[in-house]
């Protein structure tokens, strides 16, 4: 289901007033939107948990949505914040490797492109973005990422650290 930003903003305005039906519609739409948002940007088995975490954050901070502004940039900022938080939690499992078919743009419209995660990754230097994707998204070990990129293991670690730090500072960037 693709819902316009104006509709989502209206639903959120109603939800802020306590309208449960509007809130249900909003959460279902956001759940679907977030699943697409995160697809290919995190290991598949982590997407459900991340979507739920983001919905809970959205719920806890729903008062921070400005009824006079667009909805998706607000949701995207929270989604990016939770995504970076998830990347920080180190994980390493062979099943986290992504099938090629999943690594596609989740949002091909103009607004989606501006607020998407790919736009964020594009702001990183190539060396940092490459190792971040390999280690934190595709789940390679530091040694494997080092072999794949030609960067030394210590440089891979430094670049992952720098990338996460920079992503955090760019959370609201287009």
């Amino acid at each position, binding site marked *: 289901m693709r819902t316009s930003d104006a509709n989502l903003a209206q639903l959120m305005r109603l939800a802020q007033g*306590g309208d*449960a039906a509007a809130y*249900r519609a909003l*959460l279902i739409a956001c759940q679907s939107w977030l699943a697409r948002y995160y697809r290919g940007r995190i290991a598949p088995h982590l997407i459900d948990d991340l979507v739920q975490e983001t*919905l809970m954050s959205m719920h806890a901070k729903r*008062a*921070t949505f400005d*009824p006079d502004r667009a909805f998706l940039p*607000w949701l995207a900022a929270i989604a990016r914040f939770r995504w970076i938080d998830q990347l920080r939690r180190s994980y390493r499992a062979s099943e986290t490797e992504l099938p090629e078919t999943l690594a596609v743009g989740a949002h091909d419209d103009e607004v989606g492109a501006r607020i998407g995660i790919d736009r964020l990754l594009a702001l990183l230097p190539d060396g940092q973005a490459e190792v971040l994707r390999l280690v934190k998204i595709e789940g390679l070990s530091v040694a494997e990422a080092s072999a794949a990129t030609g960067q030394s293991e210590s440089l891979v670690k430094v670049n992952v650290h720098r990338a996460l730090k920079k992503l*955090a500072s760019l959370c609201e960037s287009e």
Partner: protein
Amino acid sequence: MNSPATIEALIADLQPVRPVRSRDGIGLLLVAAVLVSGVAAWRYGLRPDIVAGAPNPMVVLRLGTLALLGLATGLAAIASVRPAVGTLRTGWQWALAAALLFPLAALVAMAWNGATAPVALAADYGETCLRISLASAMFVGGALTVWLRQGASVRPRLTGWLTGLAAGSFGTFAYALHCPMIDIVYIGVWYSAAIAVAALAGRLIVSPLLRW
């Protein structure tokens, strides 16, 4: 996908909320700034030239700079509680750059006239400056932090820095109404030290309080 259970739980927890409004935060910040300035003026007295309505140009310059820095950083901190991709808040950086001209001018003055430094850095005045400025900053920063905690800053570190800068600026503003010194070296060193300490406290103390 087990999200439907989450959705039902969130709906069950739904209560009406009042949207967070920037104007509430701005109002709180200004009230806190006016309050600490009033208390400082009442406790320590205003400079005679301010009372006479003819303040020294240096006093006008420092008060204006501190007020602008406090406002710019405070507004940026307040705006950060409502996140949104595409939001660019850089105005505070220009205010900070302008304020940094004071310590820069102090350094230049010290480099050209080293004898100025010991007099201007008089420890008794400096200690008073730090004490009053930081006590005032603590009040402003505390009030602002309580308000910010209801928000959703996606850059809590930066918001912590900004909160400390705003609190330090308004705290130092309160002291500057009384401060008898107009020496650029004194202002550049002690005022900057007070704001820097407050900013660091904001980063170390406020930032963790803003995580969610």
